[in-house]
């Protein structure tokens, strides 16, 4: 198959959105890192100059990705997965520590962060395992294996420490659901999260009463003919309450103070306004500054390179995890909603791409891509606009960082390469 036909069959909508996001990302990186003293945008001592190099490398890697046969990815996925695991293990002796996390290899001009590449590799490996004719997702054992593929890299990343990146891997469970993992797993998880939050906010007693009332309602409203088995339901209730009670214990005894503070701030657990203000200015400083920066942008924003809070470096990590605040301040609601819409369209488009694959491997990989991108986008923007507690992960295609950009590009374009091949049988 020739390169030309790949280009011909590529999903250009996705490519366009990709280019838009990367371009907008770079503009905002430029704005948040430039100094008036420096004039050249190619200044390699500056982040915006380096990011240009990363963009160039990413574009080059696209050529590589598209140049390889589609079957290559399925065939070598296990190998790639093992390779990244080795790279993650290798960090323990050889890694470079930046800001307390040993997550990088020092390659001289460039720090490589293997966890960014591991996402792609894991998505491939999971797709490969699930699409195996031998695998049946309804089987407990296979479910366990699939989970293992997801968890293994996460376990290696957590002690770096980089819990944020580790969390991303769990997004891959969406692939499992798509492929037949019972949805009630998801329901149980949701209920657990709900109980966790409500317990923190209102206490176990109220959660118990609430759940009890809900059950009574179910009994009252059920059709006379329908029979609800009493014992299992009671058992579930006891289980839920046990969980609720354990939440308090875990929160008070297992969590560290900084975690508790994050939840306090997020769920407004602290009622004393003075203490809340104190938390807001110490551990909530980032969120406070980022919210204020976005707020100050208003409808139309202050204009490119005109953000006062951006210029004054008030938002920490602004060119990486908090890049969205620059959009908010300088481009206003128009800018932020454009970015949100672009991500929404991209993700929906990718779901569509995944669904139209005839080959199960491609479909599953597609779902993996969507899950990973979505979790990044959801957690990052959610954190920056104050809807979620602080979890430090980058915004795909937007945030400064070579490994991230290259990793996301590979992730996306492998899918496009597979998609370009969807009508053909494997050569």
């Amino acid at each position, binding site marked *: 198959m020739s390169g030309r036909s790949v280009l011909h069959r590529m999903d250009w909508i996705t490519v366009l959105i990709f280019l838009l996001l990367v371009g907008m990302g770079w503009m905002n990186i430029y704005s948040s890192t430039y100094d008036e003293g420096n004039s050249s945008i190619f200044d390699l001592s500056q982040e915006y100059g380096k990011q240009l190099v990363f963009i160039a490398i990413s574009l080059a890697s696209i050529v590589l990705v598209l140049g390889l046969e589609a079957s290559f990815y399925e065939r070598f996925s296990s190998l790639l997965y093992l390779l990244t695991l080795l790279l993650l293990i290798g960090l323990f002796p050889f890694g470079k520590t930046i800001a307390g996390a040993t997550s990088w290899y020092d390659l001289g001009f460039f720090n490589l962060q293997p966890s960014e590449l591991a996402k792609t590799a894991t998505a491939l490996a999971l797709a490969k395992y699930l699409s195996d004719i031998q695998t049946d997702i309804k089987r407990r054992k296979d479910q366990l294996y699939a989970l293992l593929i997801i968890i293994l890299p996460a376990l290696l990343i957590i002690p770096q420490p980089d819990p944020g990146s580790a969390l991303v891997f769990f997004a891959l469970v969406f692939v499992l*659901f*798509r492929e037949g993992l019972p949805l009630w797993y998801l329901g149980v998880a949701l209920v657990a999260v709900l109980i966790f939050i409500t317990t923190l906010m209102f206490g176990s007693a109220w959660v118990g009463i609430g759940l009890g009332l809900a059950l009574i309602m179910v009994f009252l409203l059920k059709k006379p003919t329908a029979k609800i088995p009493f014992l299992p339901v009671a058992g579930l209730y006891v289980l839920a309450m046990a969980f609720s009670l354990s939440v308090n214990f875990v929160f008070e005894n297992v969590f560290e103070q900084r975690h508790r503070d994050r939840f306090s701030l997020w769920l407004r657990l602290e009622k004393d306004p003075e203490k809340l203000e104190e938390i807001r200015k110490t551990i909530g400083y980032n969120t406070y500054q980022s919210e204020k920066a976005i707020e100050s*942008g208003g409808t139309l924003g202050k204009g490119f390179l005109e953000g*006062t809070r951006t*210029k004054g470096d008030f938002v920490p990590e602004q060119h990486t995890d908090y890049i969205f605040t620059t959009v908010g301040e300088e481009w206003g609601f128009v800018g932020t909603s454009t970015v*949100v819409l672009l*991500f929404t369209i991209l993700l929906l488009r990718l779901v569509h791409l995944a669904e139209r694959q005839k080959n199960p491997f491609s479909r599953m990989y597609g779902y993996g891509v969507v899950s990973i991108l*979505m979790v990044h986008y959801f957690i990052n923007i959610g954190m920056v*606009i104050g*809807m979620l507690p602080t979890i430090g992960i980058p915004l795909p295609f937007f945030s400064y960082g070579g490994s991230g950009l290259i990793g996301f590009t590979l992730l996306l374009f492998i899918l496009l390469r597979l998609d370009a091949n969807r009508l053909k049988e494997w050569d």
Partner: protein
Amino acid sequence: MKKLVLSSIIILVGISFLGRLSYLQLFRFSEDHLLEDPAVKVVYDYPERGYIYDRSGKLLVANQPAYDVMVIPREVQPLDTTEFCTLLGISRERFIGQMQKARIYSPRLPSVLVPQLSKEDYAGLQEKMRKYKGFYIEKRSLRDYKTNAGANVLGYISEVNEWDLKSNPYYELGELTGRTGIEKQYEEVLRGQKGVKYIQKDRFNRDIGPYKDGVKDLPSIRGTELHITLDKELQEYGELLMRGKRGGIVAIEPGSGEILTMISGPTYEPSLLVGRERSKNYSTLHNDSLSRPTWDRSILAEPSPGSPFKTLQALAALQEGVISPETPFTCYNGFYVGNRKRGCHCGGGTRTMNTGIYKSCNAYFAGAFRRFYDKFETSDKAMDVWEGHMKSFGLGNYLGYDLPTGRPGRIPGKDYYDRVYGDGRWSSTYIISNAIGQGEVAATPIQLANMTAAIANRGFYYTPHLIKKIGEETIDDPQYTERKYTTIDPEHFAPVVQGMADVYEKGTARWLQVPGVKIAGKTGTVENFTIIDGVRKQLTDHSVFVAFAPVDNPQIALAVYIENGYYGARYAGHIASLLIEKYLKGTISRKDLEKRMLEKTLEHEYAKPYSGEDFKINEYVW
């Protein structure tokens, strides 16, 4: 179903993000974010306050630099407090207290730590300030007085308080504003407009250049100079004469309504309320509840006008045609109200208008007032007409001059008496004291001076005012440049003015003539009472005098009111005479008169009610 789960989650996330973003950026956004923006520092550039000149261009008020030590609490770093306090010349307790106050006001906005250092203190401090992070020196301009007179007219400036900050967004903590007098009345003209610079800061609070290259910055606009109508020398001379006396003096140029001098005694040196001793001096002045030096008697005291008020009764009676200048009234060393006799000092006999005025005959004016009153069918009607005439001379209401404070005086109308005695239960006998300027009428010295100016002009006045020129612009405010006509026709003034001139020629002020100047005047001696230990007790009469000169071409009209100065011709008459001579001729020819006035004080009179012993009133002590 399974295919839709992820898509719905994506859409749900998108919607909630858009919702949150519109809350932040559309709903919670506020326009004035610049002042709240921690990334933008606002620096003000204070212009110099406008100078104040007198009517002939003599400088009254200039400026001197002063230096405030300011603090931005957030930027303060640990320091050697003892050393720093020694340097500033303040106590440790005061330092800690001020720091706390500043922190409460705002940790990131500047507050004043030590106000108004002198140039000398500043010179020593300047070098060492750099060592103390978070502190800096703000230059301000304080008033520098070129006169020791006119404190109450000029007013003073002081630091804005919390109420000012709330009510006027222009001001920032530590700024100065006019508090009383001219300084308050013309605050916006005098202060100019402060300049604003926005400076971009980084997270470490370092300046990193002008915000948006300075497009939002505003240059400062210098305060405009004022020329006021006061005559510096007359004012200073008048205040000299007022030493040891309490009361008020207002002199007006009748042809323009310009206030030539405005004196309240006792007064104080304007420079007392400038600089570091300011607050100490201020409390001393304000706590002096007996002599009340900051209470401007020339516009706030409201005594009964006394005999000068008789001139208006004559005019009103002439206007209503109830008497002619020749109509005679007989004085039986007094007059009868019902069967009660009220006294008169004129000597008795038949009085016409001329002798009635210059001998100040109570019986004559009681008679004239009765005629006036009887012309109308009802008391109400009579009172309305009478009230109209009186008020047309600027009495009984705020005059509308350009100072931020004042009193309306009182011309009692029918409503007043209905309230006091009951509806319809009073008649002319109840109110006849008004005819001789006693009773319920009350007027401030400036109202008396204005009334005199209206007589001098034979029927109109200009609202008295202090402003002459703002910058180079001569005022053209119709409030001050348009004539206010009285209800009396011009032809009725001649006999009254003649009577007033005869006050000097052969009447109560014949000892007070100024060589070569024809003056018209009217003395007043006002009974007054106080309450000592719950008992109503009469005090020595107030001395009142109104005059204008020269009679045929009036240049000055004035009213002098001296508390407990006894006869009108004594303290008030003397002072009026000296002021007229000073203003019209420049020098004083009657040195003995001047010497007496400069030396005599009334402190012994003012001490009487507080001595705790019985005392005599109206003693001849000179």
